[in-house]
């Protein structure tokens, strides 16, 4: 009974906010322009507390930046009739288009599994996969492949020990956004942990948007597709004709 009570208290206490996060980002709006070549976002903040820091382990910080989630079809090739073709497929219900986690220490030390489950912080937890077809025994391999492919493209990042924490109060880190970023409402979440338990959270939005010509072309393509198609053809024919005219002029 005592042990149960103790466990209850241990679980309950940290959730009571004695410490709070005050944070800022170097930019809350990422503009995708024609020469967009990736970006770096600086995240900094401080811990506000009314009492001296509790002695329940050092303060650790985890920062997670996530792009909009979308269902993804993961397909696996197999050799059929002597050639490699897409055979099995598993639909992952929701996977963020971009996901970066930065921590102030090794993941196992700064975050307990149970809080990872609750807040969906680590990359595998951020991906939601409900079920695979009955015929596929190794559904886990498909989510692993998704993480592997996106990590290679710089879309999923797990950076341990990259958040700098000073004096148990100030913290900062930077996250690199790759050039192949997609549009949408991104979220930046900041977790303060002590002994692996989340003690405070903070969430803010980052707006990633195409601007200028990029935005105009994208909207035209989706809202007036026929006009867009005709415009593409007019440009193509004009370019073809002018090149021909220029060359004729050069020769004569």
């Amino acid at each position, binding site marked *: 009974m005592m042990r149960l009570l103790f466990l209850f208290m241990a679980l309950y206490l940290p959730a009571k906010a004695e410490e709070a996060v005050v944070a800022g980002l170097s930019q809350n709006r990422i503009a995708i322009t024609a020469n967009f070549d990736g970006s770096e976002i600086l995240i900094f903040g401080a811990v506000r507390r009314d009492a001296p820091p509790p002695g329940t382990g050092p303060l650790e910080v985890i920062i997670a930046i996530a792009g909009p989630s979308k269902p993804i079809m993961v397909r696996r090739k197999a050799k059929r009739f002597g050639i490699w073709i897409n055979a099995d497929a598993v639909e992952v219900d929701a996977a963020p288009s971009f996901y970066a986690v930065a921590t102030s220490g090794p993941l196992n030390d700064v975050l307990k599994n149970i809080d990872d489950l609750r807040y969906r912080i680590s990359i595998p937890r951020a991906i939601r996969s409900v079920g695979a077809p009955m015929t596929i025994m190794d559904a886990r391999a498909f989510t692993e492949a998704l993480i592997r492919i996106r990590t290679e493209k710089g879309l999923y990042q797990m950076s341990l020990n990259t958040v700098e924490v000073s004096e148990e109060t100030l913290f900062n880190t930077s996250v690199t956004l790759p050039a192949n970023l997609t549009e949408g409402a991104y979220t930046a979440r900041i977790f303060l942990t002590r002994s692996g338990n989340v003690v405070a959270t903070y969430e803010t939005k980052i707006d990633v948007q195409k601007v200028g010509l990029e935005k105009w072309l994208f909207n035209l393509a989706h809202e007036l597709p026929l006009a867009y198609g005709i415009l593409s053809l007019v440009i193509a024919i004009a370019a*073809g004709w002018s090149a021909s005219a220029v060359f004729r002029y050069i020769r004569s």
Partner: protein
Amino acid sequence: MQIYLPIAEVSVNAFLLLGLGGIVGILSGMFGVGGGFLMTPLLFFIGIPPAVAVATEANQIVASSFSGVLAHFKRKTVDLRMGVVLLIGGLIGAALGVQVFNTLRAIGQVDLLVKLCYVVFLGIIGGLMFFESLRAILRTRRPGAVTLRRKHNWVHNLPFKMKFRTSGLYISVIPPVMVGILVGILAAIMGVGGGFVMVPAMIYLLGMPTKVVVGTSLFQIIFVTAFTTLMHATTNYTVDMMLAVLLLVGGVVGAQIGARIGVKMKAEQLRILLAIMVLAVCTKLAAELLLQPSELYNLGDVRH
């Protein structure tokens, strides 16, 4: 200089795209092929999503073919009548091809279809052209050898005959329409103009003179790829204008240079070069299908 493509949603080097456009444009002008069979795989390779690559390539081919065909019009090497007959087939084929493309895309086999099409068509055509032009070159080297007269085959025994004065032919319209349909299907599925199928078909099946073949195929390609561009733009929203402009700036300049190189070369040399290139692309794609890929998994959109 990096540039972000609004529809493909990737960032690529602008000079790389200009260069690719230029090289493929030269080939396009030389051989009268749209160059799509080289450009589309190259676009996959630099990370453009396949659906965007196929649709945008169609748009780019319009530009390079238009530029090329003007040079041919000036030299009067376009058989307009044959072009129109091929075009009628081409439009029917393109409409069919987009249907097939969308069906296979839904079940995730479009990559396989595209690659298989490439391997089969490039293999057969490249092989045939290679050996035929090799024989032709050997024949011209041997003095005193007789040049064979164009022989009559089944093509000449079909109904609905029509006179094609520029080509000096009097044949049925059925074979050209069939060739057009086949080319239209390929245009929609593979993101190519289809010149690599049409040029040999015109030479070997229809018996058209080589000099007329290039201009006529370019003429047909313009309209079929323009139609394909519109179909992709309105159904899949996958035409990337920014990508197309970069490719076509390089492409149209290249096509002009290529057309002039083409005039200076002998028809047999032109054909054997094209055959070698076709076979090289074919071998590369066949290897991709036959050898175990390093990454077995791939990601795709969910379309409901």
